[in-house]
C-alpha cells in the first residue's frame, strides 16, 4: 500500500525538494502552500502523514493541527527554523507528533516519518503497554520496570512519569504535557519538578545518567523515550 504524505510548505524550492525525495522513497505526495489549501485538500483525501512548516503566509499552523486532530489521529510532523521554540512547543502541545529543525537532511526527514508512522500504527491498535529497548524492560500493566536484569523500585511519581513517556515512546513529549499528565493541569509551569524527577529516574535506569541512552532530553522542548 502506498503511504500518502501531505506536505504543507510555502517555500517553492523546499516544497519541490521534499516532493521529489519523498516520491523517490515511494510515498504518494500531495503539496499545499497555505493552511486554507491544506484544509481544502483534507476535505477530499486522508493522508497518512502531514508534514507542516511553521510560519505559513496565511497564519497559524496550530489551526491546522486542531482541524486535523478533530477528525484523524494521523501523525503530524512540524518543520521549523531554529529560534521558533515557542511556536514549535505550541504545536506539539496542540497535538503535533514530532518536529524537525531546518536545515535538515532528507535522511532525517525520512527517519522521522518512519518513526511517526510506526508508533502511530501501534498506538492505533492498542495503547502501548510494554516497552523494551536494550536492557530496559517496562510493563505498564504489571507495574514492572526491569533494568540490566534487575527489578527497579520506582516511587509512584517516577513510575507515572516513565509510564507517560512509554505511552508516547519514540515521540517527543513536551514539558507541559508531562507536567499536566503526571502532576495535574495546575503544575504546567513547574519545570523544576521534571528536572528533579528526571534526574532520579535516570539515576535508577541509565548506566550513565549524564549521557542517557533511554530518557533523552529535547533541549527546551521536553523529553523523548528512545526506541532505537
Amino acid at each position, binding site marked *: 500500500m502506498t503511504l500518502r504524505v501531505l506536505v504543507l510548505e510555502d517555500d517553492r524550492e523546499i516544497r519541490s525538494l521534499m516532493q521529489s525525495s519523498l516520491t523517490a522513497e515511494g510515498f504518494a505526495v500531495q503539496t499545499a502552500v497555505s493552511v486554507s489549501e491544506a484544509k481544502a485538500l483534507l476535505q477530499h483525501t486522508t493522508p497518512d502523514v502531514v508534514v507542516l512548516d511553521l510560519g505559513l503566509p496565511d497564519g497559524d499552523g496550530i489551526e491546522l493541527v486542531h482541524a486535523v486532530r478533530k477528525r484523524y489521529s494521523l501523525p503530524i510532523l512540524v518543520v521549523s527554523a531554529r529560534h521558533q521554540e515557542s511556536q514549535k512547543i505550541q504545536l506539539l502541545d496542540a497535538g503535533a507528533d514530532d518536529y524537525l529543525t531546518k536545515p535538515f537532511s532528507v535522511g532525517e526527514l525520512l527517519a522521522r516519518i518512519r518513526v511517526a508512522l510506526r508508533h502511530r500504527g501501534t498506538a492505533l491498535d492498542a495503547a502501548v503497554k510494554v516497552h523494551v529497548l536494550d536492557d530496559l524492560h517496562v510493563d505498564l500493566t504489571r507495574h514492572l520496570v526491569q533494568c540490566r536484569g534487575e527489578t527497579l523500585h520506582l516511587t509512584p*511519581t517516577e513510575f507515572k512519569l516513565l509510564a507517560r513517556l512509554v505511552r508516547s515512546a519514540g515521540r517527543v513529549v513536551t514539558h507541559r504535557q508531562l507536567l499536566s499528565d503526571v*502532576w495535574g493541569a495546575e503544575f504546567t509551569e*513547574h519545570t523544576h519538578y521534571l*528536572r*528533579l524527577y*528526571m534526574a532520579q529516574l535516570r*539515576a535508577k535506569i541509565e548506566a550513565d545518567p549524564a549521557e*542517557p541512552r533511554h530518557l*533523552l532530553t529535547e*533541549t527546551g522542548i521536553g523529553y523523548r523515550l528512545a526506541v532505537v
Partner: protein
Amino acid sequence: MVYVLAVVIASYTLSWKESVACAIGSVTAFNFFFVPPRLTFQVDSQEHLIALFTMLLVALVISHLAADLRRETEAARLNAQRAGQLQMLATDLASASTPEEIAALGRAALDSAFDGPCVLALCEPQAEQGFSADLPDSLRNAMQCCVNEAAVLGPGTGRWPGLDAWYLPLGSKGQMSGAVCVQSANSGDHSGREHAQALCSLLGQALWRVRLTSTVLAAQQEAQRQQMQSTFLAAISHDLRTPLAAVVGAASSLQTQRDKLSSSEQERLLVSIVSEATYLSTLTENTLQLVRLTSASQVLNRDWESMEEIVGAVLARVRQRDTKRRIKSRVPEHLPLIQADPVLLAQLIGNLLDNALKYSTDAIDLSVSANAHELLVNVKDRGPGIPHEQVHTLFEPFSHTDRTGQRGAGLGLAVCKAIALAHGGSLTFRHRQGGGSTFTLTLPVDAQQPEKEQV
C-alpha cells in the same frame, strides 16, 4: 513696665492691626482703671492726658518695631528654608537620570514651596513642537510664550503683569526643556519669585544635562552599531563568498558535465556541496545569534534547567562526530539547578566541544562542578592552543584566529561569550598545563533553589 512688656509681646505675636488695637485698648483700659477719676473715661488733668498720649505713642512705635522685627525674622526663616530646599533639590537632582524623575522632583519641590497649585510640563527643545495637548489652552499658550521669550512672565516681572500666576522657563534660550506655572502669584513677593526662579534654574540645568547625556549615549551606540555593521559586512562578504563560490562551482559542474565525470568525482562534488552549504548555514546561524544576543531587546527563555541534562543532550549530538569517543565527560550528581536558556547553553557547550574536536586529536575533557554560588563547565583539549598574541581578541567576532589553517569565521567563540554574558556568567580561556586549551564557563547559581512538591 508691665504695660510695655504686654504691648511688646502682643505686637510680636499678633498681626499689625491687632497689635495697634491692643495698644489703643490697653491705653484706654489704663485710663479707665488707674487715671483719676477712676472707673471713667474722663481725664482730669492735662498732665495725665499728655502722659496717656505719650503711652499710646510709645505703644504704637513699639508695636510697629516689633512687627517689623517679626517680619524680618520670618523672612530670614523662609530664606533659610528655601536655601535648604534648593540645596536638597540640587543633591536629589544629581542622582536623577531621566527627565521624568527630574520632573517628579521638581513638582514635589514646587508643591512644598508654594501654596497654590503648581504645574510643571516638559517640552521638546525645538520650541515650535511645544507642549502636550493635554494641558488647558490658556496654560499651554502662556507656557509656550514663556519658553519662546526665555523669560519669567507674570505679576511683578514687567511681562504680562495682568496674569494671576508666574510662568517660569526651564532652561535658558536655545536649551529649553519645559516650563513651570506657579498659581496665585503676588506682584510684591519678590523673594518668592526669586526662589521659584532658582528652583527652575536648577531643574532646567538638570534636564539639559540629562538630555545631553542621552544624546551622547545614543550617538556612541549608533557609532558602535555602525562600526559593528561594517565589520560584519566586511567579514561576511568574505566568509560567505568563498563557500558560495564552491557550492555554485560544484553544482554547475554536476549540472553541465555530469556524463563526463566519474562517479567518484561526482561523489566528491556532492560531498563538497553539502559540507560548504552546512558551513554557510552555521555561519548564518551564528551571525544571527550574535546580532540577537548583542541587541538590547534580547530576552532569554529562562527556566529551571539541569546542567546534567543540557550536557547529555549536547553529547548526544556531538557524539555523531566523535566516533572514537574522544570526549570524556565527568558530570557529578545533584548539581544545583540554574535559571537559564537551555537552547543557548547547549549551543555554547556544543560550540566549545566542536572546536575541541576540530583543533585537537587527543582526548577532550568535559567536566562540570559546582559550589554554593557558581556552576563551572570546563572543556580542555590537548590541541595546539591559542598563540599568545591572539588570546586577547579570541572572543571578538571575526577575529580570524586561524588555527592550524582550519577555516572559521571566528564567530563561534564570540557567540559563546555573548551567551555566557547574557546569563550573567563568563567564559574564559586559559593555556592548559602541558599544552592545549582550557575554556571555562562560569554561571551564577541561585541560592534559592526550587523545592520538590510535598507528596
